[in-house]
C-alpha cells in the first residue's frame, strides 16, 4: 500500500469522479480510513451543495422585459443615430482626402528618414506598453474587488 496520502486535490477529484483517478489513488483511499473519511466529507458536501435551492429572482424577468424589447425594437435610439452620424463623418474625413490626394499618397513614405521610422515604431511600442500595463492594472483591480488581494 502507498504510504503517503493523496493530496487534498486528489481527494477532491476522487469525491467528484472516482473513475477519473489513477488506480493507485483509488486503492489507497479504499484502504485508508482517514482518506476515505475525507473523501466522504467532500461527497457529503458536494451533494448538499447540489441540493441547495437555486437562487431565483422574485419577479418575472420575461414579463418585465418583453414589453421593453418591443418598444426598443420599434424605436431608433438617439445613441444609435449619433453613433451613425459619427461613423459617416469619420469615414468621410478619411475617404475624401484619400480620394483627392491619391496620386501623392504613394510618394508619402518613399523619402521618409530612418529617424522618423524609428520614432513611429517607438511611439507604437510605448502605446502598446501603456495599454498592456492598463489591462494588467484593471485585471488586478477586478480581482481585488472579488477579494483576491
Amino acid at each position: 500500500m502507498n504510504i503517503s496520502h493523496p493530496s487534498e486535490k486528489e481527494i477532491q477529484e476522487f469525491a467528484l469522479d472516482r473513475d477519473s483517478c489513477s488506480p493507485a489513488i483509488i486503492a489507497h483511499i479504499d484502504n485508508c480510513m482517514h482518506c476515505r473519511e475525507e473523501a466522504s466529507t467532500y461527497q457529503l458536501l458536494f451533494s448538499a451543495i447540489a441540493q441547495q435551492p437555486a437562487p431565483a429572482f422574485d419577479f418575472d424577468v420575461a414579463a418585465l422585459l418583453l414589453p421593453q424589447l418591443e418598444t426598443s425594437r420599434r424605436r431608433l435610439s438617439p445613441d444609435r443615430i449619433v453613433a451613425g452620424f459619427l461613423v459617416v463623418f469619420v469615414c468621410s474625413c478619411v475617404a475624401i482626402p484619400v480620394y483627392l490626394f491619391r496620386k501623392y499618397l504613394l510618394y508619402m513614405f518613399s523619402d521618409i528618414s530612418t529617424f522618423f521610422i524609428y520614432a513611429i515604431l517607438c511611439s507604437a511600442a510605448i502605446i502598446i506598453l501603456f495599454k498592456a500595463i492598463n489591462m494588467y492594472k484593471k485585471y488586478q483591480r477586478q480581482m481585488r474587488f472579488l477579494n483576491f488581494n
Partner: protein
Amino acid sequence: MNNPTGNNPADRHLVDRVLRGDTRAFGIIIKDTECLVAGIVFKLIPVVEERKDMAQDIYLKAFHNLAGFKFQSKLSTWIARIAYNSCLSWIEKKKLILPGNLQDEDAYSLSPDSVHPRYAVSSDSERQLFQKELSVILNKEINGLPPLYQTLITLYHQESMSYEELSQITGLPDGTVKSYLFRARKMLKENLLSKYKKEAL
C-alpha cells in the same frame, strides 16, 4: 457535464427567431437562463434593490448584441458571461469591495449552537427539519466565501457547468478556475468543520 461548444441546434433556432423579430423567442431564452443569471447576480451583487435593474440590464445587453453571437459557446454560457461582466462593471463603478460574509446575513441567522449535535432522523418531519437546517448552515457558509468562489461553487455544483464553461464565463484560464474551485471547496469544508462537527452535519 454539459457540452461547452456552441453547436446547439436549439440555440440556433431560438437566436434565428429572435433576429427575425420574434421577441417571444427571447422570452424562452430568458426562462432557460434565468436561474443561471440569478446564480451569478445573487453572488456578486450584494444590494438586493439593484438586482432587478441588473437582471434587466443583462438581458437588454444580450438582446441588443444577439446578432453578434457567433455560436462559439452555448447561448447560456454567453449570457452568463454578459451577466458576470455586467456585475463586475457594477462593482467597479460603485467602488465596492465585496465582503464575503455580508450577503443576506439576516436570512441565515442560525447560530452554530442551534445545531443539535445528534440527529436521530426518524420521522419525515424531523428529516425535513434536518435538511432545512443543513441547507441554512451551508448557505451561510457559502455566502461567507469570497464572491468569485461563491460564483464558481454555485455554477459548478448547482448549475453543473464544466471547467471550460466557467473559464468562458469568467475569462480566467482553465487552470485558474480549477485552482480557485479547489481552494473554494477546501475553504468551505474547513469553515464548516471548524464550526460544526461532522456528525452534526
